[in-house]
């Protein structure tokens, strides 16, 4: 039997339909103005260098007096957690009656290239935590770390037990040497010292390129061909463009922090081995005695589930819980499924530990 159930007219017809969609799609794109991102109303309560600490305005009556500080990664921009109406983890948390703060790291400049992990963890994060504690009049606050921000939150919590009540980590790598960790595999033999010494700050484009090469044909090709099917709908086009904007909105990485992070976390797997050094202090995750909720994504191609799940055996707390999200690394924040699952779960878990 002929497996190709197409004749000449079918093919020409399909391509013609594709072309019409493509033309319509390009027309839709040309009509789009500025892509708006970040939906929840917020106020800057603290600024330092490039950093801005935001406090989100409540949307409902607060149910939990202990504020929640969201620590974002240095990679990409934090508006991914608050992308648009109905696709915002922040919005969901506010609707659960939580008092939410978020650290926006901004865009590092050349002058920031000597900032270290110590500056970020014992400096910036600690000062933000103090601001939140003072503002809310709470001795201890809740932390929620996102990806690399989760690693920072773990380090911070291990060093500052007196200031953290509960810790939530989301898609956070802990064991960097698991079987399916492609990012880790790619950087194992790269001379990071030479890269940082040569480049200073690491260009955001270089990181983009690295992420795209994880699945090049899907991420650089297929995505744009399949896009023609949704571009007749302006709202869907806008949704796509918001994600696209976020993906390519990559701040440069501060050189010294990049050096320390890649070498100690990725190459030496120091977080599970207990060898990560922040300033003069060694990070021992066993010091974390407060409750921990670890949320990971089942289909995460950037942070494999096994990498996150390793946290259970590392922390010193008796109150550890994990939650598997049925989706990917980004879907956990922006998908419809995530909106129904993540904020309510976090809120309930924190509520039980007020």
């Amino acid at each position, binding site marked *: 039997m002929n*497996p*190709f159930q197409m004749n000449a007219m079918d093919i020409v017809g399909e391509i013609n339909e*594709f072309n019409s969609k493509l033309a319509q799609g390009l027309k839709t794109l040309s009509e789009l103005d500025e892509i708006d991102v970040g939906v929840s109303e917020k106020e800057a309560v603290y600024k330092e260098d490039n950093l801005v600490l935001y406090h989100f305005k409540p949307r409902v009556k607060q149910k939990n007096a202990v504020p929640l500080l969201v620590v974002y990664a240095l990679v990409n921009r934090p508006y991914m957690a608050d992308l648009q109406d109905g696709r915002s983890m922040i919005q969901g948390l506010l609707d659960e009656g939580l008092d939410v703060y978020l650290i926006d790291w901004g865009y590092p400049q050349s002058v920031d290239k*000597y900032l270290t992990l110590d500056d970020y963890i014992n400096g910036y994060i600690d000062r933000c935590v103090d601001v939140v504690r003072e503002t809310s009049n709470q001795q201890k606050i809740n932390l929620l770390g996102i990806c690399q921000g989760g690693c920072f939150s773990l380090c911070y919590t291990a060093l500052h037990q007196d200031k953290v009540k509960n810790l939530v980590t989301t898609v956070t790598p802990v064991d960097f040497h698991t079987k399916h960790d492609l990012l880790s595999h790619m950087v194992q033999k790269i001379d990071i010292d030479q890269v940082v010494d040569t480049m200073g700050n690491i260009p955001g484009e270089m990181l983009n390129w690295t992420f795209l090469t994880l699945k090049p044909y899907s991420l650089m090709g297929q995505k744009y061909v399949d*896009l023609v099917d949704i571009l007749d709908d302006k709202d869907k086009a806008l949704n796509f463009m918001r994600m696209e904007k976020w993906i390519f909105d990559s701040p440069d990485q501060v050189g010294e922090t990049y050096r320390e992070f890649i070498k100690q976390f990725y190459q030496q797997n120091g977080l599970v081995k207990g060898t990560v050094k922040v300033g003069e202090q060694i990070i021992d995750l066993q010091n974390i005695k407060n409750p921990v909720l670890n949320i990971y994504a089942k289909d995460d191609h950037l942070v494999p589930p096994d990498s996150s799940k390793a946290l259970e055996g590392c922390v010193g707390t008796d109150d550890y819980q994990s939650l598997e999200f049925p989706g990917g690394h980004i879907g956990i924040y922006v998908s419809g499924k995530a909106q129904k699952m993540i904020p309510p779960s976090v809120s309930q878990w924190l509520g039980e530990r007020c």
Partner: protein
Amino acid sequence: MSQNFNNPFGGLDWTDLQKQMLETLMNFGKQNTSFSSSGFSSGNGNQWADAMDMWWRAFKPSSSNNNFEMFNKMLEQSRMFYLLSEHFSKIFQAFENTNQTEQSLNNLLVEQFEQLQAVLDQQHNMFSWSQIVDQCEQPAQLFKNLFSDKSIFSGMPINDFSPEVKKIREKFFTMPGLGYSREMQEKMQEALRLWAHYQDNYQEFQTIMSCLNHEAMDLMRKRLMKMHKDGEKVESMRQIYHIWVDSNEEVYGEFVFTEEYSELNARLVNSLMAFKKQSHEITEDYLKSMNLPTSSSIQALERRQHELRKQVRDMQAELKAVKAELGKTQTVSKKVTVEDKKAKSEKPKTKAEHKASKKTTKKAAKPTVKSSSRAVNLNKSRKKKSEKQAATNKKSEIKNADDKGMIEIKF
């Protein structure tokens, strides 16, 4: 075309062009029921892609839309889709003319895929390293300029990687430096060696990626054969495109987890960085000779600034702690004073005094509040003074720290 900006498809209507082509093909189809590849391709190009490119060339200059980059990505991938469509239409046509056995399908796929691979090899490689190399184009260009006619290395073929030229270059790399410009000559030789080393790695990377593409085509052929065997149907060109993407992703996905890839990737990045670093050094030498600021001098300033910033923050934290401590002490001393007064006022010696004291307790309460409020005012005023003083001290401390920092930090 600017007048057509509101209608980006005005002027030259690409969809009209496509319709015309469709009509031509349909007429052709009426005369001949079999496929005709000539309907799809003209010479080495692809008419669908050509029409799209023609429209895009006309539209592009008139538009200032911010989504240009997005347009380009879509158009680039659409070209790939057209290319696959064109080649598969040839396969379908050829297959229709055979006895449609498994063997004939396999032979056809092998033959046509070889042709397709040859075309893909000439296309822009999705995996092009050029995106990252762009970051390094500037130093590379500068380096190339050094081999211009005015250079002592003029005529050196740095981008020729034939074995013969490679031999000559290797000899050149080991040539001892001579005379006044010996140091610079050695640095240039080293840069050239690093550039050649990087180019070798780049070539190796591209060769391996190309092999992966071939493997992917082979996997795709096997998948189509399996579909044929299982009686599954391919009903659209998009389905073909997805099979092509999945096959490439699978082959690539397997390779990137190997040790070979880890080493290949590292060699490529490390050699590129080594060349770039050497280029920086050469650039620095030139800038220094012209008494212009260099990258290292700016880095030194940035490091000093970073250290100073840290010192200021540490002092701010200390100041805050001192203030808090001072506040505690003042509160305690205030409490002690009030308690002392209270104790004195509550120290009746005689019954009469005790009674009198009891009587005056209520009256005394008011003045106590007054005096307490006075104390608060006094404290506020003291606090202001102390803050002013602290600010002055801080300024002088920062200045001192500045001086200190400039002396202490050595590079």
